[in-house]
């Protein structure tokens, strides 16, 4: 093939963000269409599905294909792009009758709780009815295409990406409106008779034709951007303009005339009665079976395989051993050592992403408990964990200590320290669990596990009973007691009374133990357990636990402090004080910073918020503080997510030279350099936005639970909303600062 043609055809640009959005829309439509196709097969046919998919493909073709790339150089390519958006994509999408499938495709909570009040609002229905009136839609489309073809506006759109997007959005949305009455999109009621759509289309065709004529017959170049653009293949700007006019004229008119012909034929057809085809299936309300990860082919059986957990634990144990060996004996340069990159860059990033997308998967694969499990085959622990220590205070203290030590001793920069921590972790887990029964280390000590427990409160999956009624008739309670073949839950979570993910290690012992096969990994709404605050087995109510609240606050404020510690202004500030006070090390400065930022300031802020909340809620200061503190989990998690995913994305390749060095090969220095894609700040801000919104919504729900009436609830939640807003603003500030890329060499 001609190399120029090859180059042109290769000029695709796939913008993954927008592509993901289109795929999400396609998935929502498909999900809704599946439901509707089963219920109304004559209305939601396969043709509708094909049409909607074709519409989405036309958008991709218009905006991602070589047509877009050539659009800046050739007006005719730009014109094809506009025709694809207005005359192909818009009508095809509407022929898919998208309203109901898209609504049915949404998660139920979003459809019912979030959109429900809007959809049933009389005034909004009237507004929608007015917007799709044929007079409005005709003028909207005509105005859009005429106004955007004024030379000044068109040139502005060609010069500026932002205005170009605005132009395309205007064309597309006005076209959606234009085609709405023509296609007769359900559930809107036709305002004019179908035959009236013929003059509607013909008059629109005349507008299109008028504009095309101006472009085709003008004897001067209308758009200065194209006058300045280099001419390809000797096509002059004026010839290009005339060709663009021709494209607008002929295919544009055909796109109008096809529906005119169809409508005309239908109008001339003798009216025949179309008896309603009977719906054969009886539409009885039924409770849909819950989505269950364990029922997904391949994944479900693999997860339920009796030795699955042992296998992944063994793999992680091996990995931990390799990391520790390299940490002790390898080069003490973090980016060149597995202990400098794997735990701090990769493992932490993967942990938070797993928590966001699934749940507490890393406790499932925990290597630290494997040696004690093996040891327990020979030694049986004799003691119960002391009742005075049955709280989260130890874990909270260890978390605070870890966060401080990480910064004070630059743990990320010291492979040997990392190796000592790993070794210490194994020893501690072994020592605790060989003396005390159950999973005492996991439940009362492990700071990593508690990081997971807290943040899995916003995870979308939870280990849960499938059918509560089945448990009602159960007398053996194997899920907690265990049986001959399988131990029960070592964290004392009785499945029928378990709510949320807190304290759940995803070990799946309960799944294996249940003789009724009644425990699954089910889907949960975002932050569901924070919103509902049920009494949970083995934990009680989270909102009544000051130890849990303290741990949550350490993790929330620790998220911001930990990320801020890597920003240039904070590092400069620390070094300035270090120099001013002429200290031997940074440890005292970091200690003061962490005492203030992790304990004193949060303590004071939370105390003040709890006190102000009493104005709107009839509850004790302690209950208010504990309840509202939990609501801060999403905003804290969003900061962890933004921060740690940044490191993972920027530094994923750093593992390559570390592995090469470990296996005694010359490391590829190129991979040591961090590459920060320019979309990272957008992703981080997305996380922060969603975290703030979920926190605010949770705060509102907590306030409603503890107050009487909306006004009082608003008063009760206000200080916490302000606190969440302040944390969010801090997060935004952090994202905009230059950040030290730890464990790698900055590009």
């Amino acid at each position, binding site marked *: 093939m001609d190399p120029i043609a090859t180059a042109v055809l290769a000029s695709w640009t796939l913008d993954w963000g927008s592509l993901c959005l289109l795929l999400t829309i396609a998935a929502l439509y498909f999900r809704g269409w599946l439901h509707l196709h089963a219920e109304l097969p004559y209305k939601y046919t396969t043709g509708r599905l094909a049409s909607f998919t074709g519409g989405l493909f036309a958008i991709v073709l218009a905006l991602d294909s070589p047509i*877009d790339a050539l659009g800046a150089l050739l007006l005719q390519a730009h014109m094809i792009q506009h025709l694809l958006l207005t005359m192909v994509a818009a009508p095809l999408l509407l022929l898919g009758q998208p309203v109901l499938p898209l609504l049915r495709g949404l998660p139920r909570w979003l459809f019912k709780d979030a959109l429900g009040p809007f959809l049933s609002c009389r005034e909004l229905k009237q507004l929608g009815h007015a917007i799709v009136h044929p007079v409005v839609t005709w003028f909207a489309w005509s105005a859009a295409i005429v106004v955007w073809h004024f030379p000044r506006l068109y040139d502005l759109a060609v010069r500026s990406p932002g205005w*170009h997007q605005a132009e395309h959005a205007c064309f597309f949305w006005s076209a959606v409106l234009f085609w709405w009455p023509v296609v007769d999109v359900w559930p809107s009621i036709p305002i004019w008779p179908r035959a009236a759509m013929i003059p509607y289309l013909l008059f629109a065709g005349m507008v299109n034709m008028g504009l095309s004529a101006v472009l085709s017959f003008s004897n001067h170049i209308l758009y200065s951007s194209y006058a300045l653009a280099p001419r*390809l293949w000797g096509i002059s700007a004026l010839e290009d303009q005339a060709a663009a006019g021709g494209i607008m004229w002929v295919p544009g008119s055909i796109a109008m005339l096809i529906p005119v012909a169809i409508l005309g034929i239908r109008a001339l057809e003798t009216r025949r009665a179309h008896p309603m085809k009977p719906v054969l299936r009886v539409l009885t309300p039924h409770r849909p079976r819950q989505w269950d990860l364990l029922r997904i082919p391949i994944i479900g059986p693999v997860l339920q395989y009796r030795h699955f957990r042992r296998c992944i634990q063994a793999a992680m144990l091996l990995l931990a051993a390799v990391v520790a060996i390299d940490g002790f004996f390898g080069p003490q340069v973090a980016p060149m050592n597995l202990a400098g990159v794997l735990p701090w860059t990769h493992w932490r990033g993967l942990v938070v992403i797993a928590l966001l997308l699934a749940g507490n998967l890393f406790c499932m694969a925990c290597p630290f408990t494997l040696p004690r499990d093996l040891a327990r085959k020979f030694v049986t622990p004799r003691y119960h964990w002391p009742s005075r220590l049955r709280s989260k205070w130890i874990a909270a203290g260890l978390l605070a200590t870890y966060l401080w030590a990480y910064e004070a001793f630059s743990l990320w920069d010291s492979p040997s320290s990392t190796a000592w921590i790993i070794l210490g972790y194994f020893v501690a887990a072994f020592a605790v669990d060989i003396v005390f029964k159950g999973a005492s280390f996991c439940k009362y000590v492990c700071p990593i596990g508690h990081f997971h427990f807290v943040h899995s409160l916003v995870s979308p999956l939870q280990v849960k009973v499938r059918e509560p009624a089945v448990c009602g008739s159960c007398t053996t309670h194997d899920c907690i007691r265990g049986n001959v073949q399988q131990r029960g839950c070592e964290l004392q979570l009785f499945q029928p009374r378990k709510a949320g993910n807190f304290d759940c290690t995803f070990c799946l012992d309960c799944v294996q133990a249940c003789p009724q096969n009644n425990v699954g990994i089910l889907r949960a709404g975002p932050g569901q357990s924070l919103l509902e605050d049920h009494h949970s087995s083995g934990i009680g109510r989270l909102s009544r636990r000051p130890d849990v609240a303290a741990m949550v606050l350490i993790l929330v404020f620790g998220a911001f402090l930990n990320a801020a510690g890597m920003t240039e202004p904070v590092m400069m500030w620390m070094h300035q004080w270090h120099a001013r006070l002429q200290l031997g090390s940074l440890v005292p400065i970091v200690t003061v910073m962490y005492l203030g930022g992790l304990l004193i300031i949060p303590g004071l802020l939370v105390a003040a918020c709890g006190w102000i909340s009493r104005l709107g809620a009839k509850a004790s200061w302690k209950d208010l503080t504990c309840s509202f503190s939990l609501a801060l989990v999403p905003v804290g998690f969003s900061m962890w997510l933004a921060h740690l995913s940044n490191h993972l994305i920027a530094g994923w390749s750093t593992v390559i030279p570390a592995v090469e060095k470990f296996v005694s090969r010359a490391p590829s220095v190129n991979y040591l350099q961090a590459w920060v894609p*320019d979309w990272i700040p957008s992703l981080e801000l997305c996380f922060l936005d969603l975290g703030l919104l979920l926190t605010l919504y949770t705060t509102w729900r907590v306030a409603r639970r503890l107050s009487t009436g909306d006004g009082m609830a608003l008063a009760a939640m206000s200080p916490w909303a302000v606190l969440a807003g302040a944390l969010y603003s801090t997060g935004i500030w952090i994202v905009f600062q230059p950040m030290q890329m730890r464990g790698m060499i900055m590009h």
Partner: protein
Amino acid sequence: MKPLLLPAFVILAQATAWADGGTVQLRQEAGDLVITVFTSPSPLSVGPADISLLLQNRDGLEPVLDAKVSLVLRAEDSGIELQAQPTREKARNKLLYAAPVTLFKPGKWRMAFVVVRNQEETDGVGSLEVAAAPDKAASYAAFIAFPPVMIGLFIVRQWLIRQRSQRGE
């Protein structure tokens, strides 16, 4: 792909602020070639930018795809120098030779490029005016505006629910 479908697209738009093509900075006929230099974003400002070249045969204006291009940018006041190798692989439009660069300083930058084709060397010079970096918060305004908009919608939702309950629906 450019934002189009939903208001949420406005947010995604921030990540794709520019690509190759953009503003024509220079057009020069040298040797057998017609060289056009584009820059984006428009206007050019401190931070990541894209510099792309379209090389065409003087006869027939066919795009030239087999050249090697090198580019040097020098800030006039500070003397900072950047070197880049624009290639077709880095370009979105594969008829162009593009190079992503990061401009560190505002002000005037001198640009010099060398095109090697069929062992013949063609060079050219030009200048670029680089504006100060746009405010980061302004660049990401849509993200920062998103929570207040959602809060506003939530307030409307609550109001609608209240209206409905007052009407006894």
